[in-house]
Each structure stands twice: as C-alpha cells, then as structure tokens.
C-alpha cells in the first residue's frame, strides 16, 4: 500500500507551458466519479460508523447505545465461532494456495511443449462464477458424490478405504469443503503471478549457483524463493485479505452450516443485518473486520523489510 502513489511525472514544467494555473473544466471531469465516491464510500463509511453505536432494527426507534454493540460481540459465542472459522480459512487457504501456486508456476516455467494449454486450464476456475463453482462442489463433495466414487474405486484397486468423510454434512469437516473450493477457484491466480515473477529471475544467478555446486533444491531455496519474495509478500497480503472477506463460497455451498461450523464472519454480518435486522450489531462486526484487516496490512508492511528481498530500488 505504501508505494501506491507513484512519483510525479518528469518534465512537469513543460507539461504546463500551454495551460493556465487552474483548469476549471477538471472539476467537471471528476464530478461524476466524485459524487459517487462521496455518496457510496465517504457518506457510507460515516453512516456505518454511526450505526455501530446504535441499536436499530430498520424500523422503529434508533437508540444510542454507545459501545454496547461492540461489547455484546465480545460475549457473543456465535461471533467467536465465526471469527474462529474465518481464522481457520486464513491459516489453511493462504499457505496451501501459495505453495500450490508456486509449484504450478515452477512446473509451467520449464521448457516443455503445451505450457500455454495448461496455463489456460489452470486459470479457468478464476473466471468462473463462484456460485456455479459452489453448486458443482456441493455435488462433487457429497458423501455419495463423484469424488468419493472415484476415491472408492481407487481405494478398491489398492485395497484401502481412501474415501473422504462427509465434508458438507459434518460440523467437523465442513470448513474443508470451503477450503477445497477456494483452492480450486483461486490457485490459478497465484500461479499466474508467480509465473511472471519466475520469468523475472535472472538466469545468471541460477547458473552461478549451479557452478557453485548448488543442487536443484538449494537453488530453489536460496536463489529463486528470495528473488520472488516480493510476489510472495503481495500474494500473502492479498489472499489473507481475501480470506477475511470470504462469503459466497460457504453461503452457497454449505449455507454456513451445519450448525455454523463453516460460517465466516462476513456471513454473520449478513445474517445480523438482513435476517435479524440488527443493523447496529452488524455494523459493529464490519468495523471489527475492518480493524483486523487494517491492522494486518499495517503489521505486514512493517515486517516486509525482514523477509522481502527487493532488487536495487
């Protein structure tokens, strides 16, 4: 986030040679956009903040309750459960996706035929509607679904039962179905980013390590991985934020169940706002989420100097 604002364009002086100090038409150019942002972002954020201190059910009176919504959350077992689920999604999805995406990228960075075709296939789920993906995974992962058919057949040939437990229907495993769906859906994106990073690693470096007698694993560990660490950092932050915001996958596939076992925080926001019409409480959860994401991003930006290797700036 820190390097979002690019340095000013060069030759600023000649840029303005032909124009006045103040170009009034500029306001007309930004007007449509600015109106939208004022209404749907700035006003919205203020309203959200205000509502989080109010007990309000859409109709009826609004009572100022101070921090009561926030305090209620700290004692709310369902909030704790959904927050725990979201945490589970973060600590599973993010590392799995980074590792799988990197492996796919390394495999596709080899000089072999057909890499374009594989890249196209691996990226396909990224553009797929999540709802369609979630519905087909409901079918695939059902206890008697095609995945267990296939695993049962495989296990039959080697004499072992390797079938999956009832992922969708058991409180114990339901989160894993969401993890599997998300990995299928998003790993192609990670792969594409890593592939671009790998192609930017100077071959001389790898060759030099080879001359020094480094094996394939050592070259990967000590040359390639440090060289692509900016991409790892970026993907890590991006996917963690994405996992914080997970909603559609469990909402369509498991409805958050059974017994809230797969319900992420965002679905709890949705439930409070649009099923229990507790706007204040829902807004308070949203602010919790915001603070967590913000804090996470901040800490990561601080920590990145420790493990992210940048080429000469």
């Amino acid at each position, binding site marked *: 986030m820190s390097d979002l604002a690019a340095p000013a364009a060069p030759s600023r002086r000649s840029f303005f040679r032909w124009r006045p100090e103040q170009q009034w038409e500029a306001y007309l150019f930004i007007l449509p956009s600015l109106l939208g942002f004022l209404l749907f972002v700035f006003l*919205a954020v203020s309203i959200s903040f205000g509502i989080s201190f109010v007990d309000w059910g859409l109709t009826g009176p609004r009572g100022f309750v101070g921090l009561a919504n926030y305090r209620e959350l700290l004692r709310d077992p369902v909030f704790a459960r959904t927050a725990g689920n979201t945490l589970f999604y973060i600590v599973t999805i993010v590392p799995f996706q980074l590792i799988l995406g990197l492996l796919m990228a390394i495999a596709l960075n080899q000089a072999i035929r057909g890499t374009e075709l594989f890249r196209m296939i691996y990226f396909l789920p990224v553009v797929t509607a999540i709802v369609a993906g979630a519905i087909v995974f409901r079918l695939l992962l059902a206890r008697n679904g095609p995945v267990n058919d296939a695993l049962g057949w495989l296990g039959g040939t080697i004499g072992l039962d390797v079938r999956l437990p009832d992922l969708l229907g058991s409180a114990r495993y339901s989160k894993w179905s969401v993890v599997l769906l998300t990995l299928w859906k998003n790993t192609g994106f990670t792969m594409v980013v890593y592939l671009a990073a790998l192609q930017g690693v100077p071959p001389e470096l790898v060759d030099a390590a080879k001359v020094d007698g480094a094996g394939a694993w050592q070259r990967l560990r000590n040359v390639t991985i440090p060289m692509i660490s900016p991409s790892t950092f970026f993907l890590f932050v991006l996917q963690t934020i994405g996992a914080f915001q997970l909603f559609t996958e469990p909402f369509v596939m498991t409805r958050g169940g059974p017994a809230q076992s797969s319900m992420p925080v965002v679905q709890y926001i949705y439930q409070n706002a649009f099923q229990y019409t507790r706007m204040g409480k829902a807004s308070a959860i949203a602010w919790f989420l915001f603070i967590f994401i913000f804090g996470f991003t901040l800490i990561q930006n601080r920590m990145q100097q420790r493990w992210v290797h940048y080429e000469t700036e």
Partner: protein
Amino acid sequence: MRPNEAGRSLFGRVVLYVLLILGGLIMLAPFVVMVVVSLWPNTAFMARRFPLDQITLANYVETFRVLPFGRYFINSAFVTVTVTIGQILIASLAAFAFARLRFRGREAIFLLYLATLMIPSQVTLIPNFLIIRNLGWYDTYAALIVPGLFSALSTFLLRQFYRSIPIDLDDAARIDGASSLRIWGQIMLPLSRPIMAALAVFAFQASWNDFLWPLVVTGTDQMRTIPIGLSYFVGQYATAWNLLMAGSVIALLPVLILYLLAQKTFVQGITMSGMGGR
C-alpha cells in the same frame, strides 16, 4: 530462472507431464461433471450411467421453465454491460483530470481515492443498502448498477497509464486549439485502448459474478441476476442436479466464452486489477 531444468532429461519430462496432466484433470473435472450432468436426465446421474442415446438438452429448456432464467439472464447482461462501460468511462474521465489537468485540490482528492482502496466492501455494504432504500431504489436496476459505477482501482490504474503518455501530445493539441474534452476523447481514449480493454474485462467478470450486493438489494425474481437466482434455486431444488448443473453452465458460459476469445487480455486484466497496480 531459465526455463529448461526439468525439461532436460526424458525422465524429468515424463514426470512433469504426468503431474501437469493430473493437475489439469483436477481443475477441469468440475466443468466436465457440470456439463455431463446437465446433458442427461437426473436418473442417469443417480445410476452413474450416461448412455449416449439419452443425451438431451431438455434440462436447459426445463431450467428456463421452472425459473425465470431468461429474466435473470437479461438482468445480468444489462447490469454487467452498463456497469462495465459506465465504470470505465467515469474512471477514465476522472483519471484524465488527475493525470493531465491542473486544479486546486487535485492531490488531496486523489489521496482520498487511494484511501478508499483500503476500505473493505463489507463496511459499506449496510450503509449502501440503507442509502439505496432511502433513494427508493431497492429492487431496481439503479440499485444494481449505480454503486458499481465507481471504482477507485480503475481510476488509479488509468491515471498511472495517462501519466506515461508523452505530454507533448497534449501540448501540440492545445496549440491547435483542442479542448480538454477533445484531448481526452481523441488522444487519451485511443491510446489507452489496451489497458481499458483489460480493465473492462475485469469489471465485466466481477460484475457478472458479483453475489453479495445483488443478493442484498434485490427482492423479486424481476430483478435477480443469474448468481442470485441460482442460489435460490439450490434452496428449492437441492437434488435436481441436472437442472442445477444446466443453470450453472448458463451462468458461467458468457464469461467463459469471453475468456477463451481474449485470454491474454483476461489474464492481464485480472492480475493487474487483483494486484492493485503494484
């Protein structure tokens, strides 16, 4: 890394292909299952037997009969096209001003735009729902379209691009008496066609696949988009897999076709937008 390491030995190549094909099968399997189940009667899926003489498009016809799927499709198409075009145009106008015009408050306003990139959409979800309700837009196209027209990310990425275009072009045009609007329309727009295409593709798939916002602001079948209609369908016909799969195929077909036609633009648009221009 030079792309040749595992490619050197025959053994390495074979292992690599086996792994790549295995991965490809896993990625493709859900699509294959979707298409196969959608083309046979439900009894075929239940029996796990798909005789070729039973192939039928009846499920697709049936989906349109039990659900107002045609309506969903029109809603999705109209909303997606309007949001995509509108968002890119509005962002492009603002980006042009931020990049090439001089006015008081420029840097401050732009910083505000950047700050909004940090705000998760969940924070604005509830207030925006209330704003839409108060405007009397609940369950209308306006609710589905208008909030989607404003993208800080598109504005930011376009501004970066406009800044990279040589200033002399503007200057020359201004000497010839061109207005700012003309410079935008006749110089900037044509030059930025590739990046606008990438952003448009990203906006298109994001809008077509969007779920939470249309879920919140629609209340009737008249206004539901395909993803919302499909998710209600799951609740009603949980085991009508043939129909659910036919519906899913219809839901993902437009974006899929676009992806196959403009693969490069797609990958570029999604990675660029996903990376926030970093």
